């Protein structure tokens, strides 16, 4: 067992004699700190201090520092301090500790709180402006890379493109279908439930058809792709940045935008419309199924109503939006990936930013498209 730590203080003729004993090691630090603090309080009444370490059974940096701090406090008040009885095997440690913490660290200058708030505000608005610049830069770099690739079609990285399409398109189909199916079913159920009161159940088909084909199908799929594939892009490119793989590409005379980013974004632009189409079909199927099971409307009637309710325009409006949403998701994901710095924390932060920002932009874009299509009469 370890010896219990102790500290006896004898004051005689204005000489304070301190005798620490037992284990002065970090395991006992809570006790040691209060012992040392109570001794510091006693130092005030004395003229000189004697520190006898003879009764200490073991000591480590923490214990040595507490005693050193004690003797420094005493010395600071102009009292001579005499340290005796240091065991030979601890002498090096005690000497070493005597040298540390001599140097005062300059405290960081205090900031004016109002000024700091204003600085933060300024920084974040500048940051927002910078985001736009980063987005446009990436768009430009991407366009140049695309033009170069169009001039020399053989430089297109087909393997990478196909692999990315497989990953973000083919592998996403089950989850996209499941979720859009459920959304379609829920809309139909709610519609039937509420429309029934007016005897207008058959209009549910109009609602499901227009809502899914124009807005929800593509929007839900875009949000899912932003969460599923956009985050993966940011994390991949970010960790490549962290491990200097991007720098390696540049030194080999290759453009990272052309090699890494172009295939990813092109894959996104090609697959998102397909996913949106599949998703819309799954949502209509879900709506139709609920209409039959819950609303008692047979498939033949549902399809006939759908024929009357929707036109190709609705479908076109939905599908036209998909590639633009894909472009926004891809650009945000890749440019956030390139902004990752050295730490693991920054990778996580950038991935979060990427998903939040791309979902936000997808919804804003959807709103803009709604205004646009309304004004051209589609």
């Amino acid at each position, binding site marked *: 067992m370890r010896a219990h730590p102790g500290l006896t203080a004898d004051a005689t003729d204005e000489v304070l004699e301190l005798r620490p004993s037992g284990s002065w090691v970090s395991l006992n630090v809570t006790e040691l700190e209060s012992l040392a603090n109570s001794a510091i309080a006693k130092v005030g009444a004395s003229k000189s201090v004697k520190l006898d370490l003879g009764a200490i059974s073991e000591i480590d*940096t923490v214990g040595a520092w507490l005693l050193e701090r004690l003797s420094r406090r005493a010395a600071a008040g102009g009292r001579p301090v005499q340290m005796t009885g240091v065991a030979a095997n601890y002498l090096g440690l005690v000497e070493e500790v005597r040298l540390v913490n001599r140097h005062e*660290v300059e405290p960081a200058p205090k900031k004016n709180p109002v000024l700091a708030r204003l600085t933060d505000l300024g920084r974040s608005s500048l940051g927002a402006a910078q985001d736009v610049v980063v987005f446009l830069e990436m768009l430009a770099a991407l366009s140049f890379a695309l033009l170069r690739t169009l001039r020399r079609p053989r430089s297109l990285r087909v393997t990478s493109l196909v692999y990315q399409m497989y990953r973000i398109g083919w592998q996403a189909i089950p989850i996209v279908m499941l979720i859009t199916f459920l959304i379609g079913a829920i809309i139909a159920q709610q519609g039937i439930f509420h429309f029934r009161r007016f005897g207008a159940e058959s209009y549910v088909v109009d609602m499901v058809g227009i809502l899914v084909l124009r807005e929800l199908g593509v929007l839900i799929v875009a949000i899912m792709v932003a969460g599923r594939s956009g985050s993966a892009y940011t994390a991949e490119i970010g960790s490549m940045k962290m491990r200097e793989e991007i720098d390696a590409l540049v030194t080999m005379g290759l453009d990272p935008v052309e090699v890494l980013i172009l295939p990813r974004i092109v894959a996104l632009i090609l697959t998102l419309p397909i996913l949106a189409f599949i998703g819309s079909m799954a949502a209509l199927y879900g709506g139709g199924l609920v209409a039959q099971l819950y609303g008692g409307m047979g498939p033949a009637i549902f399809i006939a109503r759908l024929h009357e309710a929707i036109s190709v325009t609705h479908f076109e409006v939905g599908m036209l939006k998909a590639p633009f949403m894909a472009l926004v998701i891809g650009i945000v994901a890749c440019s956030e990936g390139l902004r990752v710095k050295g730490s693991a924390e920054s990778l996580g932060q950038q991935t979060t930013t990427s998903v939040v920002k791309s979902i936000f932009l997808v919804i804003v874009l959807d709103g803009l498209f709604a205004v646009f299509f309304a004004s051209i009469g589609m």
Partner: protein
Amino acid sequence: MDDLQVSCAIRVTDLVVGFGRQVVLNELSLDVRRGEILGLVGASGGGKSVLMRTIIGLIPRRSGTIEVMGVPLGGAAERATQEAAARWGILFQQGALFSSLTVKQNVQFPLRENLQMSPALMDEIAIAKLEMVGLRAEDGDKFPAELSGGMTKRAALARALALDPAIVFLDEPTSGLDPISAGDFDALIKTLQRTLGLTVFMVTHDLASLNTVCDRVAALADGKIVAIGPMRDLLQSEHPWVRAYFHGKRSQMLQPKAS
């Protein structure tokens, strides 16, 4: 169980470690004496890091026993392992500093998790550790990403020493450092070993540090310790791998000039 009476800091007996069908360590036995600096050499991929990671409990073993300061590790004695963990500090090859914390917070992390003390004392102890490994107090407010290679190693060593461990494991402490920094780091390890009474278990390929700081050197080949002893004994070893290691072109500087 007085620490002073145990002469072996680490005792490994008949250790077998393998992955799938591959056996990496085959009935390996090794004693690390208290207060010595033991250097472990071996071929790349030969199991040096596996041995170290098995001792510190990151890799499960198939059979054999490991005693640290006389306490057997693993098995039912989960608490004993926990206590042993406070008795060792580990310097990982890349430093493994937590990148979201400042250097000072990194050093304070084990203190904060294991002990109760006032924030002021914790600051002072962290700075004391940083100064002991040769960093300045100002460096404590930097983040690991802002440090150079040598400073990262020093900061990681300060964290390894935070709880005043009895044993320190160093995984290739001088790899990636220039010869001057590597030499300084060797000197630092030697100084700290003397002042703090540490036992140091060092995996290294650096022939210079083997020659200058290690009290004994163990050579790992074919999953066993094939030679162990002071450097001059190893230079005379007849084992073919040890001969190749110490008598290759790169080790000419170690040869005794007179012979």
